[in-house]
């Protein structure tokens, strides 16, 4: 057999380790698009000695846990139960794992925790770094295999006997205190603060020792564990700067006794080799992951909203059966299905479920700068633009809120509302002049947006300003502090996932405002060059996105 190209050695390594202790190692995230490389990898995965169960992201609780088989019960006239996919320990294969919703991820995580033998192979087809398996699962699966850019390799044959032997030997492998300490320290030095990583790494080291027929862990086992389990979790590579940063979070002596230091350095080196080009997979996606809105799936419209045409579907606990539609579906067949003694025969396939379409209400929050500098620039034009936008918003039945900021603080001029007249009147009455408390305006708008999000609306924040912030949050007239506060507010808005748009009302587009918009994750539009129609289109695009 030809030697596989380098990266594949690590892949086969991980798969072999997993085969020794599938339950303990939790499983593997296989990040690859469908293709020959992925097929090779899956074909190489040895038999784990477990039944294989395929899951998809929209699998329902009824399918996972023991539940009544609704269709079967209706057909046979006696209760039929399905044991559910979680009935026996299994190797679960989650396809399209990047689309796994939070509740399924939590259930799978609990399953990995509770069932000492089950493991999960998550097939992640995510296109960019944000699109990936939920953190709660990634944290529990020991390995991450990224096949990006790899060509298919010949599938090696693993020695089945060897695996069986290693499984038996695994629990006899002794872990010395120094080995445990070394793995824990290295994990911290790589910026991995969760404690699952060193625990998983230790299990992997044990598997490797068992595979090699050793009863004690050697430094080679630790290296393999570090490369396969720790490398892809690393958020930094040990160097002087990052160590100082880590020292802030973890106290204690990181550079342990002299004898072990060299071993730890070897482990770090192993991680360095395992990371192509020193790229840190975790550091880029680390902060992008938090996408939950915090209130469960508000958008899923199973039970509320405008009713739309019912559809034939299998009931799955959360939805309601549309009785009339079901009867209507069954009606034409009654003659054919006639069973003596029964007046009506409804088959499982007749069942229709109610469906609803929830229209998310939109809220446009205008945050208008009415300071002296802005007034000088073109407050009136800005007002005109807002009025135009208001009219359009009214036509779309969007709600509108208006916040003005000048002098010392921001003021809510109009709470979320549908009244166009009121909005116009308040806007016209907005006087100009004074200093620019930009941070205060952002904060006021952001809080309103957060509140709206919690009520199930989709807020969009539209900031009209010339960007010359000169009043800080605490009311100090300090240009630098004011800008810093504004930047903090912008970061917060971005972190809160609030859609926003910055309309620059200055005579010349401001560079620092452009930067601020970037920090907010907002689009920056210079007003002088935008006509109302174009502006509305931009807002529409942002609000709809």
């Amino acid at each position: 057999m030809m030697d596989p190209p380098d990266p594949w050695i690590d892949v086969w390594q991980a798969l072999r380790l997993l085969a020794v202790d599938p339950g303990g190692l939790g499983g593997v995230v296989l990040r690859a698009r469908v293709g020959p490389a992925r097929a090779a990898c899956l074909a190489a995965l040895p038999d784990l000695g477990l039944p294989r169960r395929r899951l998809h992201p929209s699998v329902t609780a009824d399918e996972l846990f023991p539940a009544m088989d609704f269709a079967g019960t209706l057909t046979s006239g006696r209760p039929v139960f399905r044991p559910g996919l979680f009935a026996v320990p299994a190797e679960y294969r989650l396809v399209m794992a990047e689309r796994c919703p939070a509740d399924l991820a939590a259930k799978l995580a609990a399953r990995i925790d509770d069932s000492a033998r089950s493991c999960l192979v998550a097939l992640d087809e995510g296109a960019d770094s944000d699109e990936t398996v939920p953190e709660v699962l990634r944290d529990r699966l020991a390995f991450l295999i990224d096949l990006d850019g790899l060509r298919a390799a010949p599938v090696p044959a693993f020695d089945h006997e060897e695996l069986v032997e290693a499984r038996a030997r695994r629990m006899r492998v002794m872990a010395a205190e120094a080995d445990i300490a070394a793995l824990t320290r290295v994990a911290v030095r790589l910026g991995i603060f969760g404690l699952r990583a060193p625990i998983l790494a230790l299990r992997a080291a044990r598997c490797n020792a068992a595979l090699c027929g050793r009863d004690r862990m050697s430094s080679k086992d630790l290296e393999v564990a570090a490369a396969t389990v720790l490398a892809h979790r690393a958020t930094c590579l040990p160097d002087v700067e990052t160590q100082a940063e880590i020292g802030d979070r973890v106290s204690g002596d990181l550079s342990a006794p002299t004898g072990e230091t060299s071993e730890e350095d070897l482990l770090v080196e192993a991680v360095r080799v395992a990371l192509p080009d020193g790229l840190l997979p975790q550091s880029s996606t680390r902060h992008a992951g938090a996408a939950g809105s915090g209130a469960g799936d508000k958008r899923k419209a199973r039970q509320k909203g405008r009713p739309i045409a019912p559809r034939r579907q299998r009931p799955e606990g959360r939805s309601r059966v549309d009785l009339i539609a079901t009867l209507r579906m069954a009606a034409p067949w009654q003659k054919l299905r006639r069973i003596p003694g029964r007046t009506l025969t409804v088959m499982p396939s007749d069942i229709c479920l109610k469906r609803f379409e929830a229209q998310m209400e939109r809220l446009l929050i205008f945050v208008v700068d009415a300071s002296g500098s802005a007034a000088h620039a073109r407050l009136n034009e800005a007002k005109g633009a807002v009025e135009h936008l208001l009219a359009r918003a009214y036509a779309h039945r969007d709600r509108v809120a208006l916040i003005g900021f000048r002098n010392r603080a921001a003021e809510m001029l109009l709470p979320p509302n549908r009244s166009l007249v009121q909005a116009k009147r308040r806007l016209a009455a907005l006087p100009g002049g004074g200093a620019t408390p930009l941070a205060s305006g952002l904060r006021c708008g952001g809080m309103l947006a957060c509140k709206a999000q919690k009520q199930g609306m989709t807020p969009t924040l539209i900031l009209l300003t010339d960007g010359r912030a000169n009043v800080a949050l605490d009311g100090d007239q300090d240009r630098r502090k004011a800008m810093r506060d504004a930047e903090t507010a912008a970061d917060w808005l971005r972190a809160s996932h609030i859609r926003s748009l910055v309309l620059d009302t200055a005579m010349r587009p401001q560079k620092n405002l452009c930067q601020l918009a970037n920090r907010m994750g907002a689009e920056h539009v210079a007003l002088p060059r935008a006509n109302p129609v174009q502006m509305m289109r931009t807002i529409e695009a942002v609000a709809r996105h």
Partner: protein
Amino acid sequence: MTHAFPFSAIVGQDQMKLAMILTAIDPKLGGVLVFGDRGTGKSTAVRALAALLPPIAAVEGCPVNSASHQGCPDWAEVPEDAEIKERPTPVVDLPLGATEDRVTGALDIERALVNGEKTFQPGLLAQANRGYLYIDEVNLLEDHLVDLLLDVAQSGENVVEREGLSIRHPARFVLVGSGNPEEGELRPQLLDRFGLSVEVRSPEDIDQRIEVVQRRDAFESQPAKFLKKWHREDASVRNSILAARENLQNIKIRKRELRDCAELCIALGTDGLRGELTLVRACRALAAYEGAASVSRRHIRRIAPLALAHRLRRDPMDEAGSVSRVRRALEGVLG
């Protein structure tokens, strides 16, 4: 069944362990919310607590674990001569995505389909009566379930009025929630319902971290030896809990300490009186646990972050955590 990791073998996380022990002493405290990083032993602690708690006496076959025959709901059809047996304190998991039917109980479809009888099939709330209800990732729970739980947790009674059923049964349980704040905030209404809250972080001391990995490893490779080693300590915690329960009624609290609690809450601007009540109650439980005769300022100092940190008005842009705000207020009030 596999054994749970022993409670006393959990390294560090003293705040979390203390909070759980306090709810075991006084179930009326209103539950614990554990918020924090992944892999900090949140779930481990809850499962360990379940193994640690003293058993309860319950009527055999009673769906709500009643202590006496009078307490059994009539719809349950528990036979008159059912024995009263000891059973472990129930710790019920509420899985995310559980349906409302599963939580509250609903029409027993099996009996409805087969016998045409209209009977009630009790849900998780019935199972959790007199025990614990544990919700992992509580911040991802669907809104309608949250509302339902709030209502039941407050009234101590589960009322089901649907599908032609009209059922009520006691549902008094300690709510334990855990979650990761990065994945979503909890609504303040729900936060307020939890008596105590703890923020957990992964241990910051390298030796502690090594200890965690070592103990986990020992637990996995030699479970029998490990469990035996920690059994004694677990038993001592259990005995302290039982003694504290006995003693809870005798703990005195003086005017001065009551005033301290009130001033603390005013200084922090917590809404309503729930904060003060929980603070006093938890101080009392702590005093009982420590075998003290009365509540002292030391107890208040230790409990205040647990009982108050989650009741503060949130300032989304204040980066200092709420725990440090409580600490500041403590310094101001108690000196």
